[in-house]
């Protein structure tokens, strides 16, 4: 609904790229953390562990990015002014896409989908920007997202049959009698 024409296509300068990267990594780290908290609250520990691991990875990435941004005057974007094609940044899983019965495999696939969107976002900038420094940094960021995708592919390969099952609920929500 806050529709923008394409992810990353309008980003031209290094401060613009860094402002977007910082917002995206922040949002991703927070969202993975929120999802891990939600799943822990509902005792879905295996799914929570996946999201927690991703939160840690995003926070590590964020630390490096923060360091990089320290020397640059970043422009301020209101949340609705970022150049994402969707409502939120490409890496953030929409809250409405999870549920308490999410299987481990579904959680990994969901995370993979959003890591790929993040990689595509940076790749789009690398392909369309004119400035060499923007292209180079966007490519580097895209590679980092590909690295996360690689981890997720490994997790997916390690999934057993139980990890594909919709989590059973021993105490399902019942309407009042």
């Amino acid at each position, binding site marked *: 609904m806050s529709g923008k024409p394409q992810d990353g296509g309008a980003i031209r300068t290094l401060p613009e790229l860094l402002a977007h990267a910082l917002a995206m990594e922040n949002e991703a780290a927070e969202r993975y953390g929120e999802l891990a908290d939600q799943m822990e609250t509902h005792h879905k520990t295996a799914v929570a562990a996946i999201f927690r691991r991703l939160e840690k990875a995003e926070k590590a990435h964020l630390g490096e990015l923060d360091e990089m941004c320290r020397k640059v005057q970043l422009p301020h974007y209101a949340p609705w002014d970022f150049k994402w094609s969707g409502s939120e940044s490409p890496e953030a899983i929409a809250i409405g896409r999870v549920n308490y019965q999410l299987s481990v495999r579904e959680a990994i696939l969901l995370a993979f989908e959003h890591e790929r969107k993040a990689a595509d976002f940076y790749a789009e900038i690398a392909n369309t920007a004119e400035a060499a420094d923007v292209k180079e940094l966007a490519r580097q960021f895209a590679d980092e997202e590909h690295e996360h995708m690689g981890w997720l592919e490994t997790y997916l390969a390690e999934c057993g049959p139980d990890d594909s099952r919709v989590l059973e609920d021993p105490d399902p*929500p019942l*309407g009042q009698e």
Partner: protein
Amino acid sequence: MEAVTRKYKAKDYKSELKPIWCPGCGDYTVLNALTRALAELGLAPEQVAVVSGIGCSSRIPAYTSVYGFHGVHGRALPVATGLKLARPDLTVLVTGGDGDGFSIGGNHFLHACRRNVDLTYIVMDNQVYGMTKGQASPTTAPDWEGSKLTPEGTGINPFQPLVVGLASGANFVARVSSSDPVNMAQIIVEAIRHPGFSLVQVLSPCVTFRPEQAEWRDIVRTAVVDYTDDAARAARRLMTDDGFNVGKVLYKGERPPFRPEFEKTNGSIAELEARFLL
């Protein structure tokens, strides 16, 4: 675009308490949108208060770092009214659900709209009482058969909060979807900035007792018309839509907010006795 650093980030408005809503609940998104809006407005947490009643969505004050009051069922609006009149310097927000606001608190809702105190009322409408395990609420469709209390549906036309709000005098009316938190943050910013009583209806699915509402994210569409300052026109538009036109302000009025002048007092008991004791 400004080259400035914002003093507050959205997470500065969140408390350490972890929400216990069901995963996938629209209320998480409202919390995120609300904190983003406050960060964008640059309001210090101690300049803001969130008042609520009872229900899943009324838990929001506990999850924020601003002043909060988790009050009595349906009574959030009178508490917020009193707070705003006593402390006009505070930005006072009211949060709650459709049952709390339009059934138990229905009468307060009408008069809060009429009175037009400078408040922002964010109603998370999921058309069900979720906290008490899924009964029909004032906004539930008449043919919803999901509750054993109303196995053949309520047979009663749903309450139209925005139309009633307009008729009663709300000064700002908008409808948003929890599937678009960024748009919601933008509308909340506008609602807070607009003087008087601002009403924001959020279509916020209950994934547990109304799982079919997960489809709302595919059904909602951005309203095609911009806001009007004509309440009757806005009401006519609302009466003829299907409830899924979202993402825009529908009405902005120009009625001045209710700001009574209070006599200065020295706050002593003797003075209060002299004024009020019969």
